């Protein structure tokens, strides 16, 4: 059982939905983002998605793109992102960390080496946007063998015929992308998302978490109420981009978490 599985078991016992937050590792610099990261569990975050910066984030909208650029300019790398996770783990052994990013930095490091290092750093799961089920041999299967969850994205274009293929090697949770589009672009609508989540849940026992287009406490509550939880990324990253103090960023995260937990 990974920390992710344990977290969902604990939430189920409390009858609570999961709140997942995304921040970009090293945005605007490593010290600040580590400070934000360390404060997330106390602000009510159940699972932390830690972005790995990449020069060509083809699934991200402007907010996350710019966060990646700031991180890279501050000297962030995959190694430093792993260092951040390891540093966080010194004080927190329960909050799951999911690395989210693109395949090339991992491929460049070497999959086997990366998996050993990620596991050692206390990473629990991976979301790699440009690895669909058709490329499962690359990282998904080796990651599962190494004891890391491989969290797959399901999208509105994932039809019933394709869904089993997407769910097949998924573990931890399913990340349902609520809109066709990039991160932070359009707003998710609970009325549309509900039936889609039900469709996925009919095909799997793994929790279904909904992200993309969730940006307010109200939205987090509405979306969480029709799923097993929700993810907020761009709205939090925007606060960091605006240079708000870490305490203000975390206060905002708390309102989102409270919203999701009401859902």
């Amino acid at each position, binding site marked *: 059982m990974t920390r992710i599985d344990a977290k969902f078991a604990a939430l189920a016992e409390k009858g609570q939905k999961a709140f997942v937050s995304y921040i970009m590792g090293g945005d605007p610099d490593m010290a600040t983002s580590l400070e934000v990261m360390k404060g997330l569990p106390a602000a009510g975050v159940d699972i932390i998605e830690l972005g790995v*910066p*990449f*020069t*060509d*984030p*083809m*699934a*991200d*909208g*402007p907010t996350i*793109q710019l966060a990646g*650029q700031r991180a*890279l300019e501050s000297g962030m*790398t*995959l*190694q430093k992102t792993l260092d951040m996770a390891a540093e966080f783990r010194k004080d927190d052994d329960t909050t799951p960390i999911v690395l989210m990013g*693109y*395949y*090339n*930095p*991992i*491929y*460049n*490091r070497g999959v086997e080496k990366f998996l050993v290092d990620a596991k050692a750093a206390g990473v629990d799961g991976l979301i790699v*946007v*440009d*690895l*669909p*089920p*058709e*490329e499962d041999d690359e990282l998904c299967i080796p990651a599962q063998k190494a004891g890391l969850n491989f969290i*797959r*994205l*399901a*999208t*509105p*274009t*994932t*039809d019933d015929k*394709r869904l089993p293929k*997407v769910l097949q090697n998924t573990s931890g949770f399913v990340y349902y*992308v609520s809109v*066709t*589009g*990039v991160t932070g*672009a359009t707003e998710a609508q609970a009325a549309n998302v509900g039936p889609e989540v039900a469709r996925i849940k009919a095909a799997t026992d793994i929790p279904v978490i909904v992200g993309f287009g969730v940006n307010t406490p109200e939205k987090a509550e509405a979306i969480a109420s029709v799923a097993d939880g929700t993810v907020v990324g761009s709205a939090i990253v925007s606060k960091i981009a605006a240079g708000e103090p870490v305490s203000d960023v975390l206060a905002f995260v708390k309102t989102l978490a409270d919203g999701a937990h009401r859902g």
Partner: protein
Amino acid sequence: MANDLFNSFMNGPDEKGRFGDFGGRFVSETLMPLILDLEAEYEKAKTDDSFWAEMQYLWTHYVGRPSPLYFAESLTERLGGAKIYLKRDELNHTGAHKINNVLGQILLARRMGKKRIIAETGAGQHGVATATVCAKFGLKCIVYMGAHDVQRQAPNVFRMRLLGAEVIPVSSGRGTLKDAMNDALRDWVTNVSDTFYCIGTAAGPHPYPAMVRDFQSIIGKEAKEQMQEAEGRLPDTIIAAIGGGSNAIGLFHPFLDDDSVRIIGVEAGGKGVNDDMEHCASLTGGRPGVLHGNRTFLLQDDDGQILDGYSISAGLDYPGIGPEHSWLHEIGRAEYVAITDKEALDAFQLCCETEGIIPALEPCHALAHVAKIAPDLPKDHIICMNMCGRGDKDIYTVAKYLGFDMSDTEGRAAD
């Protein structure tokens, strides 16, 4: 070994879209159903005679194919060695090989009922070709172009707008061709139901590298026949310039199983293939990685971050290369070399002076390599080079560059 089904170099890609270890389908889940759909439609079209009949008609009457295979006599004399033929794809409608591929993709888009076409462009040649064919068929056309390129390629931006296309300047990242491709992919992810992404080179997720190659292979097929007519045999060496590599794979592919034919791809060496990475020579100076849907050779740093690259030729200014070239490089069937800006500019002038042809800066890289090897080859050695684009779009760039040199040499660029 030619035509041996089991030992052919022409059978790729496999069902996973791989050429050896290269290629593949590295895209987000949202796009995966779309590219599977595209693959299925392309497989159907490929074996449909009516599809190719329409292509053939348009190639003949709209593009002006076949393009001539021209014996460059003065150039041959000047270089004093091998006999040099130019495949004149610069005479195509819109001035480059790009339209060969665009026509194929737009006919496919029409079969699929897609009404909105998106494209990325660097120098603007693929954008102009896409805007042209969309105008002809009454399709909405949106072209993503790096903000920096929009500024320095104003004539092509105006052409696209005249042709009814919307040109969107891309300022994400550093505003280069790779960023334009990122934004086109982001558009596609957003507008999944009505949009067809017309990729300009033999790269991207499967089936694009195979599909674009198939459409561009008309270059090599014609060249093979025309050479047979002119010389009664195959050429000894074929040469083409490479950015993403579509004109090159188009020339190379029909010759892959002809063992006697030496195949040379010429990358943009920029200011020189060095540690500063001021070049776009992915094979000569890069290593395998994953970008824009495929695994291929890329310019990248130690952390796997993609570098921008540099070339005087905007059309070669891409940090990757089509996956089939990566494979041909790895197995050694084709050789890849790099030519610097300076060498390409010298070739530009040589071509103007000896043949009365103003070439685009892209094929000047190929020509520069021809100029390097031809003098030492015997007179009965036949070289066929793809003149893939005309130079109208580049005269400002060249003038500026030569102008800089002129101050030292009183009106005449240094040799």
